[in-house]
């Protein structure tokens, strides 16, 4: 299969890569772009571990073809902290011990940030339903929800 050349933006920087036309964005992020923070948990869009922002939309990168992102912005976990400072959500996850094995954590952080950007004052139920697309097997979600609510409060100032 001839590979396609795609130009896009990743975490604010220009990037380009070669990919097969049936290759997923997840595969390209992890292999060609070597950003392994985005994880593969299921490849069927059921676990959210591969969550990224595509032109400011929360999506599963395992269900997006890499060829579709020509000219688009991709935001992954690697771009979440701002230079030296961790994002409030990242800090709250640490403070609240909202992670154990950590494999689902990048997906949750990307999803939670998307929530708070849209709804800065969510209820516990709204947080749980928004994050229903992210599976965690270690924490039982308790401390994750606490961390997101606490981050929301801090971000509201």
């Amino acid at each position, binding site marked *: *299969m001839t590979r*396609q050349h795609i130009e896009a933006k990743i975490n604010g920087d220009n990037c380009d890569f070669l990919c*097969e*036309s*049936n290759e*997923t964005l997840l595969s390209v992020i992890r292999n060609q772009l070597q950003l392994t923070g985005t994880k593969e948990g299921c*490849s*069927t*869009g*059921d676990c*959210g571990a591969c*969550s990224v922002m*595509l032109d400011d*939309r*929360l*999506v*599963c990168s*395992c*269900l*997006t*073809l890499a*060829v*579709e992102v020509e000219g688009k912005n991709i935001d992954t976990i690697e771009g979440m902290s701002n230079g030296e400072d961790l994002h409030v959500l990242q800090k709250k996850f640490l403070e609240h011990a909202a992670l154990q094995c950590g494999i689902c954590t990048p997906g949750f952080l990307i*999803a939670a940030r*998307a*929530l708070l950007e849209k709804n800065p004052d969510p209820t516990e139920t709204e947080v749980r*339903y*928004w994050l*229903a*697309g*992210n599976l965690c097997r270690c924490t039982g979600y308790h401390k994750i929800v606490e961390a997101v609510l606490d981050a929301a409060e801090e971000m509201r100032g």
Partner: protein
Amino acid sequence: MQYESPKSIDDAISLISNASGNTRLLAGGTDLLVQMQSQVADPDLVVDIKNIKEMKEFKKEDGAYVIGAAVTGMEIAEHEEFAKDWPGVVDGVKLIGSIQIKGRASMGGNLCNASPAADSIPAMIASGAFAIIAGPDGRREVLVEDFIKGPGKTTLKSNEILVSIKLPLKKQNSSGAYLRFTPRTEMDIAVVGVGVNITLSDSGICEDAKISIGAVAEKALVVEDAASALIGNKITEEIIEDYIEKVRASARPINDKRGTVEFRIQVIGVIAKRALNMALERIR
């Protein structure tokens, strides 16, 4: 696999008309890529419709909403005015999957994938929606319930494309709802689904109703008997019992890993009642 991203509907039609192998259209990809993963689908040509302007438009034409086939679930869910006018359709769209899935999945794709359990389909049917189809010979309109033929099958010919979904003008004193039953609170395929649209007169008599049930047959069904049970009547407990019976009588589900026949028939009545009550609440 070849990937093409045409900029116009005519280009898209020309691509699929001239294709020699297995061709698939790509909107959100949340069904197609899953099928490719499990090797159920192995297309030679994928035609991405997301760069065709008309397919991405969400607009009003003479007061009626027209939703492009590539408009995503999140865009529909975020449209405040539309949610006020057609809450039932938004109910269905919101249940298509997680936030991530809805960020890509389109109502048009949900329709064309034609799963018997698709959430937006009973909602669209109940609302009286039409599928707008384009082909080499021009355009045609088909009621959504007639657009679907069976599991994974639609009336689309191999050289036709779904362009958009058009809703009728919203009537006064009308509203709708879509409810489903799933084992978990989210992230599941509907075991049963019910789309309801109801119009009441000023005195509270049901003037019009359309009821559609999903996941209990090879495609979403229109239950005319259930609508007839409501039309012309004030909605009382008794009327609702009759309505539930008619819904159950028309369900013809199968046993599969998501539910048994008995369970589906029992529960579709319950869900139909709850959806009806939701729609009535919204009118008030």
